């Protein structure tokens, strides 16, 4: 680029480096803000002046005889950019406020600008549409109406939230402990954090379970069999007596429950989402409507909230819940949060435990089927 003209906007190293970046990568760097692009918009007419002069002259000198000579499009491009800057300046003007005449000028200039786009850029993309026929360009057509409805364009501008989002959500990813080489957005960091948490839970389960070959022992130190059946009595015909009696109770297989990560669970009955559903506001008196009265339901909302707090508090950082210390021996989880609408006798409350089904480490069902 030859800065042959006296440009009021300085062409400094930052701007030249941008053009180098554009030439190298084909897109602007991610750290550019809307204000930077407005800066570039002001120098655009100067940058376009005679931009293609040398290339066009070189082509015309070497063109095959009979082919028409190219006309330097720089003049047309400068005209388009000047019209655009003129329109944009009026469009963004806040003081003095735009009157009806200004709105008319913005509308007519916008229509003229769109006509210029069609004639100066008559090229079509793969879908057969003009390359300047985009949603953003098309919005120029309606800007006069929007100003009439909402006055200052800043009233409908999302520059502020966009900038804030870029700075405080996307940009903060680099401030995490993931290191500068992996600058995820905060949303990505949250997802990664959740994945890490799940992985930690899986590893913790593996550690708690011990080795897969862990032997479970009975109260006399003898290894438990993986059998489905244990028999009372000592006679061989009643079963293998080497492993001792079991009071004649039919006990289901603990071999299956020894390693939690191998357990799979499903809730069944009434379809994917259950045979019925209850709203937490309507069961505080234990009334399940047509299902009848079941007093335990009165405790359910409170228990669920405390369950979320105790085991999943890291998923609700937006609620600013009280932190749970690692040593819970002197920390009363039930006292940390207080409900407004549920009053439960504490002793009765302590009788109930809520389990994530994944936390049902061992269930040996003793049923008389």
């Amino acid at each position, binding site marked *: 680029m030859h800065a042959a003209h006296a440009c009021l906007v300085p062409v400094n190293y930052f701007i030249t480096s941008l053009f180098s970046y554009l030439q190298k990568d084909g897109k602007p760097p991610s750290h550019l803000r809307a204000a930077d692009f407005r800066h570039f918009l002001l120098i655009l007419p100067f940058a376009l002046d005679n931009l293609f002069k040398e290339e066009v002259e070189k082509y015309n000198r070497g063109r095959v005889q009979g082919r028409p000579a190219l006309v330097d499009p720089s003049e047309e491009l400068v005209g388009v950019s000047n019209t655009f800057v003129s329109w944009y300046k009026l469009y963004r003007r806040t003081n003095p406020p735009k009157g009806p005449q200004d709105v008319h000028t913005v509308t007519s200039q916008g229509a003229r600008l769109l006509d210029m786009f069609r004639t100066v850029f008559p090229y079509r993309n793969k879908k057969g549409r003009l390359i300047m026929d985009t949603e953003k360009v098309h919005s120029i057509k309606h800007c006069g109406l929007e100003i009439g409805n909402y006055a200052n364009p800043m009233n409908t501008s999302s520059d502020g939230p966009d900038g804030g989002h870029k700075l405080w959500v996307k940009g903060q990813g680099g401030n995490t402990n993931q290191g500068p080489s992996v600058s995820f957005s905060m*949303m990505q960091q949250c997802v990664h954090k*959740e994945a890490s948490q799940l992985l930690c839970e899986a590893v913790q389960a593996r550690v*708690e*379970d011990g080795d897969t070959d862990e032997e*479970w*022992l*009975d*109260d006399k130190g003898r290894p438990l069999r993986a059998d489905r059946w244990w028999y009372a009595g000592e006679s061989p015909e009643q079963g293998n007596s080497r492993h001792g009696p079991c009071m004649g109770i039919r006990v*289901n297989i603990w*071999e*299956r*429950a020894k390693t939690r990560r*191998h*357990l*799979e669970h*499903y*809730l*069944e*009955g*009434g379809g994917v*989402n*259950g*045979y*019925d*559903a*209850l*709203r*937490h506001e309507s069961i505080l008196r234990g009334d399940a409507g047509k*299902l*009848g009265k*079941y007093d*335990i*339901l009165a405790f*359910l909302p409170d*228990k*669920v*909230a405390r369950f*979320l707090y105790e085991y*999943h508090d890291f*998923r*609700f950082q937006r*609620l600013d819940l009280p932190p749970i210390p690692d040593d819970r021996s002197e920390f009363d989880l039930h006292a940390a949060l*207080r*409900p*407004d*609408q549920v009053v439960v006798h504490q002793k009765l409350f302590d*009788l*109930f*435990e*809520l*389990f*994530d*089904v994944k*936390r*049902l480490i*061992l*269930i*040996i*069902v*003793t049923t008389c089927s």
Partner: protein
Amino acid sequence: MQLNALLQSLELRPSAQRTGHFGLFNCLIIGHSKHDGIQRVYCDPFPKKLFYGRNRQDLALVRPPGIEPGGFVLAPDSVWYCRVLLLFSFSAMTDTGSRSFDCALVSVMERYEGPLASGNYLNYLSYLTYLTNDAIK
């Protein structure tokens, strides 16, 4: 207030009958990634929804959390004795999006050491005294 905020994060979900926060189920199926077969834990606690004519709520033994690796010994006093009170599912809007939770509400049965405990005749008598006094009043 924080409990209310947590409750507000629950999402409404449709079921076969109504829409609500807690989807109700009557059976927990426990499968295994290496062994064949399944185990079923039934829970039908509602008086107007019976399981073959009765309210069935299975009993379960639960391995308590917090046991050191390899330190679990299956013994009568090393497990929790529970009755399954409710099998339900809910979803909550967390910081990273909607998440579903499958849960079992169980009652942890503990050794009863109250005035009516076996062999505690003195307390049993005093309990009767209280009842009598209440009746007289």
